[in-house]
């Protein structure tokens, strides 16, 4: 099946957007042995360019909005980190002073530790539960749609509302305290500088696994059923089927989820703002909370921007490492 035969399996606009289609040799997709038809290819290139232009025009509004409200502020933020900016509008160049101050600030190291600890617990747990539940509701069975909907509900539940309820659940006389009492972990976890992070991780995982489950569920639909059935016929157990058939198909999805979840956990703020306000005794004081305090409470915008830059570098570095570890050669 060739494009000349008019049965191209990809939309023309997509093909046109590929650089090779615009400037590469006109033999792409051609049936072997068929001579190149230069005139047709030329017309197609022109058409492709026009379609590309129209496609670009459609993309342009979103791109401009992205430039104006995402890219622009991000660049401005990086620039601001080298200045001392007063609310009255005074801008003084400080060079690397904000970063030097950051390195010398024990609160920064404490909040970095809290952020990393939170992420180390929250990201793997969210991924594991997302995939486990996606596998559980993957097959259609009686009530499977109901369970899929129920599992997704926390994602669309207001975190402010959920936070109020979880504050009660984790309170001194709340059910979690009663449940943990026999294990010697009774009392309010939100009152413990050590247990506050696990408590927040539980709420974070609860609020996010539904999204991961949905993405994983979509990826699982692409796993060839016949491969699994063949493996089953050959006597492969559930774990072997998952390990050697399902998991390789899930790799790109897992990478996507890992990057998304890591970014979200590095940037955790609303959950902490609602539940603990960074306490007790800075037990849940994350980098973004520190950034918020410096920017909006103390009006120290340059210092806040420097924290933002560090957070960006951290997120980028971890995403690249994840890409290497999970993404494989792809």
């Amino acid at each position: 099946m060739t494009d000349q035969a008019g049965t191209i399996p990809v939309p023309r606009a997509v093909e046109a957007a590929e650089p090779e289609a615009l400037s590469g040799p006109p033999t792409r997709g051609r049936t072997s042995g068929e001579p190149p038809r230069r005139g047709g290819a030329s017309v197609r290139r022109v058409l492709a360019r026009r379609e590309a232009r129209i496609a670009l025009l459609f993309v342009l509004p979103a791109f401009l909005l992205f430039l104006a409200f995402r890219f622009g502020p991000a660049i401005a933020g990086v620039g601001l980190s080298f200045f001392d900016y007063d609310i009255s509008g005074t801008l003084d160049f400080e060079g690397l002073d904000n970063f030097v101050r950051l390195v010398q600030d024990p609160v920064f190291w404490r909040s970095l530790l809290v952020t990393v600890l939170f992420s180390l617990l929250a990201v793997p747990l969210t991924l594991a539960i997302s995939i486990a539940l996606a596998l559980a509701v993957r097959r259609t069975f009686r009530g499977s749609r109901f369970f899929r909907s129920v599992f997704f509900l926390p994602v669309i539940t207001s975190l402010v509302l959920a936070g109020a309820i979880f504050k009660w659940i984790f309170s001194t006389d709340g059910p979690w305290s009663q449940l943990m009492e026999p294990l010697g972990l009774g009392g309010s976890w939100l009152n413990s500088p050590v247990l506050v992070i696990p408590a927040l991780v539980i709420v974070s995982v609860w609020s996010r696994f539904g999204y991961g489950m949905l993405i994983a569920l979509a990826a699982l639909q692409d796993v060839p059923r016949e491969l699994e059935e063949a493996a089953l016929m050959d006597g492969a157990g559930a774990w072997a089927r998952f390990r050697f058939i399902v998991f390789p198909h899930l790799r790109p999805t897992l990478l996507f989820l890992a990057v998304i979840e890591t970014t979200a956990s590095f940037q955790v703020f609303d959950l902490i703002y609602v539940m603990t306000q960074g306490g007790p005794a800075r037990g849940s004081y994350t980098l973004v909370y520190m950034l918020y305090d410096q920017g909006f409470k103390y009006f120290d915008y340059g210092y806040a921007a420097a924290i933002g830059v560090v957070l960006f570098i951290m997120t980028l570095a971890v995403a690249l490492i994840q890409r290497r570890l999970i993404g494989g050669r792809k």
Partner: protein
Amino acid sequence: MQHRKTLAAVAVAATSAIALAGCAGGSTDGGDAKVTMWIYPVIADEAAHSSYWDGLIASYEKANPGVEVDYEIYPWANRDESLQTAIAAGKGPDLVYLIPDQLSSYASSIEPMDAYLPAEQADDILPNVRDSITIDGSLMGTPLLTSANALMCDRSAFEKAGITDYPKTWDDLMEMAPTFKQNDIYTTQYFGSPEVTLNMTFYPLLWQAGGSVFSDDGSEVAFDGPEGVAALTYLTELAQNDYLEPDLISTMPALEQTALATGQVACTWQSGPADVASYWGEDNIEILPPLTDEESVSYGTVGSLAMLKGAQDKEAAGAFAAYATDADNVKAFDLASNYFSPLASTGELYADDPIQSAIEDVIPTSRVGELYPGAREVMGVLAPEIQAALLGTKTPEQALKDAAAAAEPLLG
């Protein structure tokens, strides 16, 4: 191809429109004077609040043809974020309601009021109120109201515990604590969340012990002195003996989820009658002078209308601010909002109301907090250390010492 060209043209036009809309700024009609004001829900009933300003502005505009006053009532939550963003974008209001702590933070963006207030109106401001809104000799706002957090006790809790006398000193309250505990009543409460200003929580104890947050010249912190240690030791003793509601040390639940709402707190200096009246019943509210260790002192605040430097028409904004805060209007506003007058000439507003009258008596001795530069940052490093002491992970001495060390570079 024509339809494609049309489509492309439409896409370009839409893109341009969106881009332009994103960059569009506010427009002014020019000519007549226009004043904009941001206020917050000082009168809790939104309809009553709007009605107050609608009436006042209508009468002002009638008396001053050509002047237009617009106001917006913003929520209390995240008000600093909104205001900072607006100021940074050059879209701030001409006038805004600020408390002393904010006057200090926004000082570089505020136009002093001295030139816009008639002399007799400026002279009418109570001395402690004037001090609280003056920075470097300039009046940073024109006061609209004052408040004070007296000691407030629940009569029914005392009856339940069989205690007939009310506390006057720290020791009185501590002696009563075991009896309250036996009756499942917390002696008091402490909002330990770093989001709660220490002006309402720890600083009154520090002041009552005779201490202060800063040295006299504001160049260094003083909260780690013996007075601060005494205040935090007292608070820690209350916490570690379960005389305080434990969850409030680290979280800030809705008031209805706290022991205060279920009638299980005997006394507090961190909430007011309006907070508890619907739970305790007005008949059960006992207002008392602030506790004393070395002196009886409480936190109070002053609400002012401040003018921002970016005000379009400073004369018009100043004239309206002076009008809105003259003695007649202050009296009307404070009665409508259940706050107190910052002016001497208005006299006692609540002579017939025993609760409000008792609080009014405390106003002249209340303090508005610490107005030195860096006061907010210092709260930011002190609040977590207080939490650590209350949770028993640090001694009061160590917690204050660590907080003082962390505060030192902030005062640079």
